[in-house]
């Protein structure tokens, strides 16, 4: 079937997106809606002495100005972190209170102090400017290392020394012993830079309270509307779940930043109730830089030891993770269970130990951003491997291959049990596509043009399809991470799939339809995907961590199993045949080997008329399922990056980028390639372009596109994308996930290539022209000194 699994079906959703007919939150217009603007702290750390809203309230058309103390008095709960992490000493994490509107203190520039509601957006902004807040400035700290230092400014009373938790994984003593016995130890300081997620559509919310029905509706830019409803109701006490409908309509990208429930949504809901009008807020780009959860920001030291044959004997890592001013929803899980559990990389390592200190600073809260913990792990291990190979004078690919995990399942010392993979196959495929054999000649040719050419590897593995509920529960997660689906076959035979996954760029309307088309041999145009509305979809955990394929589609498959069984029963009954002889193909349900058949829609009709169905069978043809994964899935692959550096300016061009991925089963190669392209773009962005920079006063110096370098088409190469796949044994479709791999695997390949080109391994991300040039000057002054 041409539109089934493996077909390059064009995206069904693109017609409305590329013709400007998408329906985003800011496009929603409610009768009598008002507009919100937030009064935000200009200081990174200050005590609120007084707030005077009288001038704002006196402006004509201003509905209300609401503040933190009133919010607290109304019983609106503090913002939660949904994953409890326990410290080495057994103590729970030290979580400071985060009120949607600040009460006594502000802790980062952009912290919301008041919500202003007015007749127009411009008026709301003007009124927000008219609110006079007196601040008593407090000392500021922005870096995690500085925040842990003696005498650092303190952010939260219950987090002494700004330490949120001091967590560990693996065994310390054996790891130390292994490193002590090692023939070679490579030691590095590794920083993972801070990034702003920058979805194209900024965050937005419009909240309505219907007093007569005692019911709330919230349209919002969410990757997981059911989780938003759950948290808004269970923890923030905005409304009970059955009185709150959350709709995430078309959402223009998230990259993790739209998983969380932010102060603005809470405040809009609360304000809508207080003033009896719909309240709409849409972030502008500056607000996005100042308030969307950032990603990454790790400072690590790492040691890896090898025996005399180049086999890894141990890995020891310390990481300081900057979580910003408050703990965002999954902030604690990202630098722990989503990070250190992947430190084994593609390698068979007997001894691993990692401890992580999570730290409060006067910066924007940090949480999951495309890859979430796995890019940090991959960058660390792949920089170490490349560096170790250089130090030992061996081929970096050979050193990796020697240490590959070769049999599955493979239990690492850091929780994860890899279920499948063929790392040699990915390495070989990438090397061939990249013509590694011809690199020396290309390097010489580049040198003749005055350019420095370098090549770098990254052999990544990551974990997707998060995750078995009992497993994550035992590790501290506050939720289960299953997914649900409902398959509705209508009386006319068309199908609606209601899914708890949420598409915000992934193309679910196409790929989810493809698996249904495959199963029932129908055209995708007969299949509609419904998602993003808590009143329509039964429940869902949403889309992040590349889980929509491995978990979301598996739930659909389970529901389809039930539908198929019922279809066969009905057909067997009507056609007077055995259920086992019924086959579904070509738009019909047939008795195999005969010409007896019912058309697909006739079965639908039979189910709903119920005139002639097996005795005792319920009418209708609609089934639902919840799928709880059995394991994480483990996408893996090999990326090879080749660069040319202009030594005069430090300008680096990525001249070749080869990806060989193992994503398991691929539903739509075109969409998968798009995901890889976008992921690599963000990975190259992290490696060479993007960086959130704070000054010592806690002001973001990079809070606009004048200073934050978003990757552009001409910064990026033509990608060479390949697949060498093994089937994932853990889910019915054999899928592993492809949404984040590009962003996870690419940064170390880029930095390994640049450091190879310039002959200086001391280079941090982002490798801007200025940074590369400075690293080249270091090489030159070293040569001069010798």
């Amino acid at each position, binding site marked *: 079937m041409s539109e089934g699994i493996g077909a390059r079906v064009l995206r069904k959703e693109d017609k409305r997106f590329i013709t400007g007919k998408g329906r985003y939150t800011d496009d929603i217009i409610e009768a009598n809606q008002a507009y919100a603007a937030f009064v935000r702290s200009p200081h990174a750390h200050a005590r609120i002495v007084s707030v005077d809203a009288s001038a704002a309230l006196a402006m004509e058309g201003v509905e209300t100005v609401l503040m933190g103390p009133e919010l607290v008095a109304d019983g609106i709960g503090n913002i939660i972190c949904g994953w409890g992490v326990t410290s080495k000493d057994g103590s729970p994490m030290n979580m400071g209170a985060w009120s949607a509107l600040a009460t006594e203190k502000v802790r980062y520039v952009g912290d919301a102090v008041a919500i202003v509601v007015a007749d127009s957006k411009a008026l709301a902004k003007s009124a927000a400017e008219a609110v006079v807040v007196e601040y008593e400035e407090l000392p500021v700290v922005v870096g995690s290392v500085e925040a842990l230092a003696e005498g650092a400014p303190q952010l939260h009373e219950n987090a002494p020394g700004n330490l949120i938790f001091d967590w560990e994984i693996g065994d310390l003593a054996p790891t130390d012993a292994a490193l002590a016995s090692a023939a070679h130890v490579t030691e590095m300081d590794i920083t993972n830079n801070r990034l702003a997620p920058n979805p194209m559509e900024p965050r937005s919310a419009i909240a309505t309270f219907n007093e007569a029905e005692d019911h709330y509706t919230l349209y919002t830019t969410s990757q997981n509307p059911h989780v938003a409803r759950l948290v808004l109701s269970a923890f923030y006490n905005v409304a009970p779940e059955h009185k709150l409908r959350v709709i995430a309509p078309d959402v223009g990208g998230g990259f993790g930043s739209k998983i969380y429930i932010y102060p603005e949504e809470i405040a809009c809901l609360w304000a809508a109730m207080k003033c009896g009008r719909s309240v709409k807020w849409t972030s502008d780009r500056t607000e996005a830089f100042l308030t969307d959860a950032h990603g990454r920001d790790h400072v690590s030291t790492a040691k890896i030891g090898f025996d005399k044959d180049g086999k890894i004997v141990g890995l020891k890592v310390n990481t300081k993770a900057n979580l910003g001013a408050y703990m965002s929803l999954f902030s604690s899980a990202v630098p722990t269970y989503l990070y250190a559990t992947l430190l084994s990389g593609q390698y068979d390592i007997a001894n691993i130990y990692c401890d992580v200190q999570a730290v409060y600073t006067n910066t924007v809260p940090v949480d999951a951003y495309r890859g979430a913990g796995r890019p940090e792990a991959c960058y660390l291990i792949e920089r170490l491997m490349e560096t170790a190979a250089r130090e030992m004078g061996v081929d970096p690919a050979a050193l990796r291959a020697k240490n590959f995990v070769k049999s599955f399942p493979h239990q690492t010392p850091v929780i994860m049990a890899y279920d499948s993979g063929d790392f040699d196959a990915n390495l070989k495929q990438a090397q061939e596509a990249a013509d590694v054999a011809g690199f020396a000649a290309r390097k010489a040719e580049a040198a003749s043009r005055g350019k420095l050419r370098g090549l770098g590897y990254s052999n990544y593995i990551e974990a997707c399809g998060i995750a078995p509920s009992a497993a994550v529960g035992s590790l501290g997660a506050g939720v289960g991470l299953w997914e649900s689906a409902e398959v509705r076959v209508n009386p006319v035979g068309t199908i609606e799939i209601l899914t708890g996954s949420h598409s915000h760029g992934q193309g679910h309307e196409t790929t989810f339809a493809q698996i249904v088309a495959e199963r029932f041999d129908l055209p995708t145009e007969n299949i509609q995907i419904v998602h993003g509305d808590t009143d329509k979809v039964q429940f869902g955990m949403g889309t992040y961590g590349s889980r929509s394929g491995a978990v979301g589609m598996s739930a659909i498959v389970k529901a389809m199993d039930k539908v198929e069984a019922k279809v066969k029963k009905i057909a067997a009954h009507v056609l007077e045949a055995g259920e086992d002889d019924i086959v579904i193909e070509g738009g019909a349900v047939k008795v195999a080997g005969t010409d007896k058949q019912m058309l697909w829609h006739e079965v639908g009709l039979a189910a709903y008329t119920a005139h002639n169905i097996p005795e005792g069978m319920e009418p209708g043809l609609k089934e639902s399922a919840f799928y709880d994964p059995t394991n994480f899935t483990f996408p893996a692959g090999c990326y090879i990056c080749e660069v040319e550096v202009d030594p005069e*300016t430090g300008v680096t061009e990525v001249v070749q980028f080869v990806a060989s991925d193992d994503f398991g089963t691929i539903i739509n190669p075109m969409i998968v390639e798009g995901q890889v392209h976008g992921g690599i773009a963000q990975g190259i962005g992290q490696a060479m*372009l993007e*960086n959130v920079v704070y000054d010592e006063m806690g002001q973001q*110096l990079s809070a606009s*596109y*004048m200073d*934050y*370098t978003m990757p552009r088409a001409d910064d990026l190469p033509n990608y060479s994308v390949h697949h060498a796949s093994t089937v994932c044994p853990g889910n019915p479709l054999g899928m592993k996930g492809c949404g984040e791999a590009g962003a996870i695997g690419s940064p170390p390949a880029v930095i390994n290539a640049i450091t190879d080109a310039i002959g200086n391994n001391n280079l941090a991300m982002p490798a801007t*022209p*200025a940074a590369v040039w400075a690293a080249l000057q270091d090489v030159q002054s070293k040569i001069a000194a010798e």
Partner: protein
Amino acid sequence: MYETNFHSVSSPQEAEAILATATDAKILAGGQTLIPTMKQRLAAPSDVIDLSRAEGLRGVTITKRKVMGVIKADGGETVTIGAMTTHAEVAANAELAEVFPAMCRLAGNIGDPAVRHRGTIGGSVANNDPAADYPAALLALAATIHTNKREIAASDYFQGMFETALQEGEIITAVSFQAPAAGGYGKFPNPASRYAMAGVFVARSKDGAVRVAVTGAGENGVFRHAGLEAALTADYSANAVDGVEVSAEGLMSDLHGTAAYRANLIKVMAKRALA
């Protein structure tokens, strides 16, 4: 954006009249700088005067130099560019490309296509962004800034970051310069904004004088570089640049690069301007 009064005028004189009476009126040219600033609420003009329909402010004219009534074949043309001429129009002007292609290339590398089709030379020069491209060209070409009141030499006109000799009520109508015997521009774009991080315009006039102007790198806006000028006056070649010490003093340091890096870029861009 704050509320403002919008005027569309058909002549600079009409604009001048409004400028004289309104409390805080601003000229609107291409709006590529003014509009974003207003949207961010960093500017709140009482009135905005749109020059896009004003006559006589748009286009490139080239007057051939005549010596004793005879047109000289070897250049020396006077190039006049109307204030409302967009970057795209300058980039695509065939006549200008014939007498001085470096100017077309400079204009063709400003911003992105949308910016180039709206942004104007008058707006750029009036704004005098320390990282803008045109100021380097005009300073190196010893250009003249024409306003509704007077003519100003480029060397008097550019007075530091966003500072110019323009007085209240003064409207730029055109810029003009003599097409040089040789010249070129080397631009190192800021990776994020793509404005100049170091832009070096080198020009050798008909009488042999070499001027080198640097934009994007200085702490105080566009400036001339005496060392490069001396070296290139002696030997107008990329090799001559190698021997010049470019000091980092007075250069900008920011998250995109240190003063030392910018000093290096000035040298490299000077060479590339000559290539």
